[in-house]
């Protein structure tokens, strides 16, 4: 009796857990894992997406085509450009504003709300809004530039300025999100530490450089991570504003994938693009977690393991 009881209890516990997990697992496998596997499968076929499963096996042809395609190589370069610009301009800007809004100033709750608002707007609305503001003919931006005697720009309609314009929209849309992350991180830093530094005679800059910034490290690393993944998968803003044009000069990997999958019905080739995107994201995520975020993760996992 004494030996069977715990076992039946354990079994019951296991059944309960399984029952609770089952709906989520079914959804996860049906809606996440299965489509990924199907994309892997379809990526080695020539397939227009119709009539059951693909049958025309082409081996690695789709992948050799992707890696030789000028547009796709351009996508990689543009993705890298967006990542560099995000990390070099957008994130420092968010950090600066976050530090400012951490000061005891009047109406800081209002400003926090105001700066976070763009993030709440949907991508589609943001896109339409900026199409109007940055219109080459009667946009607000050109009107304001006119006050300073600057010649009107073509913004999204000129291959040489389109990436800059897209980046402006991205920054406007996402800086509030990173700002909130930084404010939360900053508030997690105990006041004693900054006070101690100030008593020891540290200036404002020194306190920021040697106390605040190192302690914000984990927040910054996760914010860079989210920013990079976001740039790799950028789709909706670009699709609505430019559709990838003019002549592919603002196209991203996701836009190229959509073009081939849903406009040209070359679903096999589009799947190959999605597989390449998947691996780029995976490799980046693994390396970043392994080498950059190792210390942040160590703190959590190793301590827990010791306690077990």
């Amino acid at each position, binding site marked *: 009796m004494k030996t069977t009881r715990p076992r039946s209890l354990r079994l019951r516990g296991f059944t309960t857990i399984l029952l609770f997990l089952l709906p989520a697992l079914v959804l996860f496998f049906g809606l996440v894992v299965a489509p990924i596997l199907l994309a892997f499968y379809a990526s080695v076929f020539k397939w227009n997406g119709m009539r059951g499963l693909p049958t025309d096996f082409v081996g690695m042809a789709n992948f050799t085509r992707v890696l030789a395609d000028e547009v796709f190589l351009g996508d990689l370069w543009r993705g890298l450009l967006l990542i560099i610009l995000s990390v070099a301009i957008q994130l420092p800007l968010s950090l600066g504003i976050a530090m400012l809004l951490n000061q005891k100033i009047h109406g800081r709750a209002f400003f926090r709300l105001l700066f976070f608002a763009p993030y709440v707007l949907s991508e589609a609305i943001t896109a339409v809004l900026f199409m109007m503001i940055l*219109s080459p003919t009667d946009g607000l931006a050109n009107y304001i530039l006119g006050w300073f005697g600057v010649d009107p720009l*073509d913004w999204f309609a000129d291959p040489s300025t389109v990436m800059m314009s897209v980046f402006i929209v991205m920054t406007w849309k996402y800086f509030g999100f990173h700002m909130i992350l930084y404010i939360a991180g900053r508030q997690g830093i105990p006041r004693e530490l900054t006070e101690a530094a100030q008593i020891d005679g540290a200036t404002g800059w020194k306190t920021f450089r040697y106390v605040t910034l190192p302690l914000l490290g984990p927040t910054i690393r996760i914010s860079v991570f989210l920013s990079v993944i976001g740039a790799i998968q950028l789709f909706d803003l670009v*699709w609505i504003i430019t559709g990838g044009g003019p002549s592919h000069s603002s196209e991203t990997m996701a836009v190229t994938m959509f073009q081939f999958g849903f406009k040209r019905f070359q679903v096999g080739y589009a799947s190959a693009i999605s597989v390449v995107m998947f691996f780029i994201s995976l490799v980046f995520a693994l390396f970043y977690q392994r080498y950059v975020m190792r210390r942040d993760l160590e703190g959590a996992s190793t301590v827990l393991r010791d306690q077990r």
Partner: protein
Amino acid sequence: MKLSRRGAALLAASALVLGGCGSTGNDAGESKSSAGGKVTVEFWNIWTTDPLKSYGAQAIKDFQAKHPNITIKSVPYENEAFKAKLTTLTQSGKAPDIFQTWGGGVLGQQVDAGLVKDLSADTGDWIGTFTDAALSAYQVEGKTYAIPDDIGMVGFWYNKALFKKAGIAEPPGTWSEFVDDVKKLKAAGVTPIALAGKDKWPGHYYWAYLSMRIGGLDALKQAGESKDFTGPAFVEAGQKLKELAALQPFQKGYLGATYGDPGGQAATMGDGKAAMELMGQWAPAVQNDAGKGLGDDLGFFPFPAVDGGKGAVTDAFGGGGGFAIGSEAPPEAIEFLKFLTESTEHRKAVATGGLLPVLKGEEDAVTDPNLSVVAKNLAGATGFQLYLDQAYPPAVGQEVNDSVAQLIAGTKTPEQVAQAITETAKSE
């Protein structure tokens, strides 16, 4: 109508999602009992807005009054939603009894899948009442798979006042005159041409028409069959278009402009900010909608002839709509189509301004003066070519649009355009 069909990709994407999620409870395939006397025929159409919405309701009522044993069940969807719904249904191997089609590559795929009834045997004398241009999109290898209901063509819509301002008395009849007029307009400080560079499909009209005028309709037909677009006609068409683009005839910021949105091609034209646009029969309606509209200042001239070219200036380029019948539809479905395309009935539809004549000698039924010009040009057409992005498989059509857009933007040479289209056609 064309506007929303080609319309915002956003709509298309959401329609795809909605179409995929929607219930399939009311799908076709439940109404095949013609033996018991009473028959229900499902009629999938895109008549969601007036004037065709109310016209369709009245036509169905009239038909049912004449045929009390037949019930027509109308299933209207907006263009993009219609395409998504129909794609979902055909992928499961079914087709509605009667459904809207635009012919070309998509109809060809449905025919290959055995979903569409061959109407050649049933039509007989009936087929002779239609114009050749209207029928051409639905005939595959000598067989007829759909009945035309609407047809239109692309041509230049121009602003008479701006032409006068530049000292141009007559619309150009040849390409060289056209180029001269573009220069005159520029010299007079007028933007010669409105173009939606972002949408890409309006740009492909230039390349397609130039190819038609230089190589003739046969060149396009042959290229479609041999999948080889590298012939001299296509390269020369590219060069002519490149020369035109080099004159910078388009409105400011045209590379980012759409067709129907505020500030787009139609609005630029409708507000009198450009002298002409190359567009289909729906252009005046969209100009009025997106801009102020030109009223009596609006004129139409066919795409000019190219000196030494094989194509006639009367060869038309465009597309229309028609109805196909599902392979398992009851025979009564044909009765309804015969009713719709019978002369007095179709004249009623044409008089509403929602459709253009597809029957011989029907041109006088058109009431709108702009549409009347198009109808007369079509009636005198010596040949007809369907929109290239509809005539060819989707990948080839998109490659045409894409490559020509790059040609106009100056990032591809005429030879590269021909090469890229050929490569895509061969890989299909």
